[in-house]
């Protein structure tokens, strides 16, 4: 096993990775930007290296700085966490070129699956159902028009280099296609440095279902059940749970089998997530995420498997510690993402210093957070303050427990607001309780009076 690992990330996930490393006896090198000098992981890791100013481009997205910090401190591997460079094939290559093991799929695979149009083709070739759309990236508005006329409206224009809900535009009328296409192209260029786009049919009210897989890189793949991430705001997940409530067992098995099949086809290595849309009894493949995901705790809570540990094992060549037979799904788990945002002001981020910080605790409650009393919420990074995950034998108890946990979370700081109470409203919402909700639940809630 590695003796030293550099964690190329920040916030709760950096701390999450450091914890497993410590349990495995691995020395941890954290990195921090100027605004993270006093961060939880900076104090937690065996060493913390200052890599740059607050701007991600010059710190957490700075491959040269990360690799240099790793080499200077004797790291043998780099764990990228999620976001930032976690799915960047170039970063993976640079690591390998410098003798550092990148904890994730090989660069070549990251490249193929990172191209969302190509990933969709690979899935289709593997026999997975996909939405009608362009079979490759499109370059001109004319190409787009042809495809659009073929598949019809509403449709969605996606950035080839996008993913995770970013870089998408819904078009409901052919007259809007031209303008939407131009804008999407500009945004894609600006956001991902890659103007390529592709088009597919847009499903109005679908469920977001994803399957967690672990691959040993030698063709061996196990799945750890599905997650329902349908509670989203502007395509950003707020609440995730497993198993997917109300999903017919047979359909769940078909989706999970599809994910395993697709992962085997590409010889998947490490932790990955196959995302699907489910709409009255049918499912279609959306994309693959080649990283540990924010919502991985719910899978850990029902399986008992430490996903970061499996990532490190595979990266170190030890293979997986579990076979499919070892994977026993037990009970229900729900994760709530608490953001430092003000739901009453259109979820505007609320930076400030947290003077009181008392996370929930006690039976069957798990908290992943980088917060602490005195923690400064900055505008430099995403506003997620904590993930509160609960486990219970059934969904009714899990919802009650999640509500209890959210209620007891104390976050006090001048100017700081959180989404706790909003999330509790989601938990109370009839559609959510009945598991009849789709990805538009939160947007409809925000149109309801008390959120006018």
């Amino acid at each position, binding site marked *: 096993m590695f003796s030293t690992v550099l964690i190329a990330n920040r916030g709760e996930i950096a701390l999450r990775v450091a914890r497993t490393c410590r349990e495995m006896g691995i020395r941890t090198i954290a990195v921090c930007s100027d605004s993270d000098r*006093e961060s939880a992981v900076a104090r937690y890791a065996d060493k913390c290296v200052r890599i*740059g100013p607050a701007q991600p481009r010059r710190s957490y997205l700075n491959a040269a700085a990360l690799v240099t910090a790793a080499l200077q401190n004797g790291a043998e591997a780099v764990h990228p966490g999620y976001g930032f460079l976690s799915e960047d094939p170039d970063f993976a290559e640079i690591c390998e070129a410098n003798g550092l093991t990148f904890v994730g799929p090989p660069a070549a695979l990251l490249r193929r699956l990172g191209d969302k149009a190509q990933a969709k083709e690979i899935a289709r070739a593997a026999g997975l159902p996909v939405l009608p759309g362009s079979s490759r990236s499109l370059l001109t508005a004319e190409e787009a028009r042809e495809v659009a006329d073929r598949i019809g409206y509403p449709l969605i224009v996606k950035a080839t280099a996008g993913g995770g809900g970013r870089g998408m535009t819904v078009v409901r009328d052919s007259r809007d296609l031209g303008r939407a296409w131009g804008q999407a192209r500009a945004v894609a260029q600006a956001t991902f440095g890659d103007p390529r786009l592709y088009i597919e049919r847009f499903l109005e009210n679908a469920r977001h279902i994803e399957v967690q897989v672990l691959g040993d890189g030698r063709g061996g793949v196990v799945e750890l059940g599905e997650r329902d991430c349908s509670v989203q705001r502007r395509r950003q997940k707020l609440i995730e749970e497993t198993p997917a409530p109300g999903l017919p067992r047979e359909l769940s098995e078909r989706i999970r089998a599809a994910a395993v099949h697709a992962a085997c086809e590409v010889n998947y290595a490490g932790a990955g997530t196959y995302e699907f849309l489910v709409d009255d009894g049918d499912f279609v493949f959306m994309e693959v995420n080649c990283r540990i995901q924010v919502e991985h705790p719910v899978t850990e809570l029902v399986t008992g498997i430490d996903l970061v540990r499996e990532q490190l094992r595979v990266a170190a060549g030890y293979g997986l510690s579990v076979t499919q037979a070892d994977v026993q799904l037990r009970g229900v788990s729900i994760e709530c993402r608490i953001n430092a945002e003000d739901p009453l002001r259109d979820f505007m981020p609320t930076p400030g210093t947290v003077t009181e910080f008392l996370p929930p605790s006690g039976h069957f409650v798990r908290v992943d957070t980088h917060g602490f009393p*005195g923690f400064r919420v900055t505008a430099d990074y995403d506003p997620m303050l904590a993930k509160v995950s609960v486990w219970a034998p059934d969904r009714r108890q899990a919802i009650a427990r999640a509500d209890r946990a959210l209620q007891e979370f104390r976050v006090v700081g001048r100017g700081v607001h959180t989404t706790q109470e909003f999330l509790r409203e989601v938990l109370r919402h009839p559609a959510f309780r009945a598991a009849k909700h789709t990805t538009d639940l939160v947007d409809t809630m925000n149109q309801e009076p008390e959120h006018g």
Partner: protein
Amino acid sequence: MTIETTDAAPPGIDELCRYAERLTESTPGPLKSLRVRSGDLLVELEWSRPEAVTVAESGTTLATVGVTVTAETPTAVEDGTFVVSAPLVGTFYRAASPSERPFVQVGDVVVAGQQVGIVEAMKLMNPVEAERPGRIVDVLVADGTPVEYSDALIVLAPA
């Protein structure tokens, strides 16, 4: 940030001492200990009565106290000198190559923008420049030493 005010150490301490004096006046009893920290504006007075403590603090947890020096702007030190710090993480070199002479020596006078060293990261030689004119009074890091982003490298005094 609090930190920046903390950085301006001398005035901060002055004020804290004034608060301390005022607080002693308002509280009778023999003083046992007095602590002044500029780390997060903490003043602590302790009387011989063990449980009697006066604390004046801004912010809450000392765990979060820290000083941030940004590499963007030169850092002021009490005596008016300035520090040139590492623009990125890498290895500090005083000369373009082992055979050549160092860019600067103690005593040299440099102009703003003049190269005073190199930080090498992944074979890339990144010039380190003096942000403002001055005279080199100290070189804090030996040639070939690994440095982190914003490590202090060279001390300049106004020319």
